[in-house]
């Protein structure tokens, strides 16, 4: 054996050593970051965009679409504002309506007081008519309340009680019929 030369097995062993090694996951990022910092590489987000006719047309179309969308949005927003104004008007009008209901209720109570006051001197037919009108009014008012607020238990009880007793001539009323309005 000449020590100056490799034996075939030595040669094979040395030449068959693996030539590649897998780098760590962070090395690539480290190298790229360093090259970016040195200005060799540009990050993908800052790559120069070549200006072509197609790209210009696309940009113009995008601008037009943007303006139209803005216009439509403004139009829609102004329409919403109109609805809002209507709603506030209704709310404002709600105060006199409630007031008129209160005034009608007060008049109704006063009429009943008058009826009670004259009950000792008035003939029984007139008293019966007064009672029937008062019950009808109470029933109609409660019925209106049930229409306005279906979950109002007290109004529904009044309606049910009057209907159950058959007072005020309400037993023959058809379902779905328009509520009667009593004019004072």
């Amino acid at each position: 054996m000449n020590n100056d030369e490799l034996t075939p097995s030595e040669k094979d062993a040395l030449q068959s050593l693996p030539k590649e090694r897998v780098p760590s996951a962070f090395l690539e990022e480290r190298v790229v970051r360093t090259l970016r910092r040195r200005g060799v590489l540009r990050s993908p987000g800052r790559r120069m965009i070549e200006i072509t006719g197609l790209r210009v047309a696309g940009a113009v179309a995008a601008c037009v679409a943007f303006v139209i969308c803005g216009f439509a949005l403004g139009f829609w927003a102004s329409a919403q504002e109109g609805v809002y104004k209507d709603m506030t008007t209704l709310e404002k009008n709600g105060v006199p309506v409630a007031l008129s209901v209160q005034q009608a209720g007060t008049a109704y109570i006063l009429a009943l007081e008058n009826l009670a006051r004259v009950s000792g001197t008035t003939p029984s037919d007139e008293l019966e008519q007064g009672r029937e009108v008062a019950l009808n009014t109470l029933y109609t008012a409660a019925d209106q309340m049930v229409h306005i607020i279906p979950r109002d238990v007290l109004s529904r009880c009044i309606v049910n009680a009057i209907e159950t007793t058959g007072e005020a001539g309400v037993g023959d009323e058809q379902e779905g019929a328009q509520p009667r309005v009593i004019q004072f």
Partner: protein
Amino acid sequence: MDEMEAQPVIESSDRDLAEAVLQYGDETAFRELYRRHTPRLLGFVSRLLGRTEAEAEDVVQDTWIRVCQALDRFRWESVFSTWLLGIGLNVVRDHIRRDARTNFLDIEEVPEPPGPMQLPEDRIDLDRSIGLLPDGYRVVLVLHDVEGMKHSEIAEKLGVSTGTTKSQLFKARNMLRALLSHSK
């Protein structure tokens, strides 16, 4: 039916990728080039360096930086990978010089030749023993016996005479045999 056949994926050449990096700083092209060649580069510099994985990765990073800086001067008269490994070798030598662990040509004490290499069953042991060689011996042995380079090429790359590389190789082989017989 021809349209139904799968089209072969056209892989960008090293030159295309390198030009994209050079002209546009194209990061994607660089990553492709990096992924294509780094496992081989890392295997090469790791064995030449004979140090830790982290140091080898530092050398790989420095190599890629030098490659990018010198890319405009590369004439494409050799394949890219050969040029890359050549730069890697220079970076390894710079690293060894800076490290100053040993002087490249100063090692004179070589153990007596113990006979043929006691080749280990495991390649890792052989690699480890190569790593234990003094830097100058290891570089010549790796370039000649592992990478298959000729003395004239090694002498040119290292800037020394072929007599020097032959002498270094002789000593390196003897020391490797001694290390392997000792480890047995």
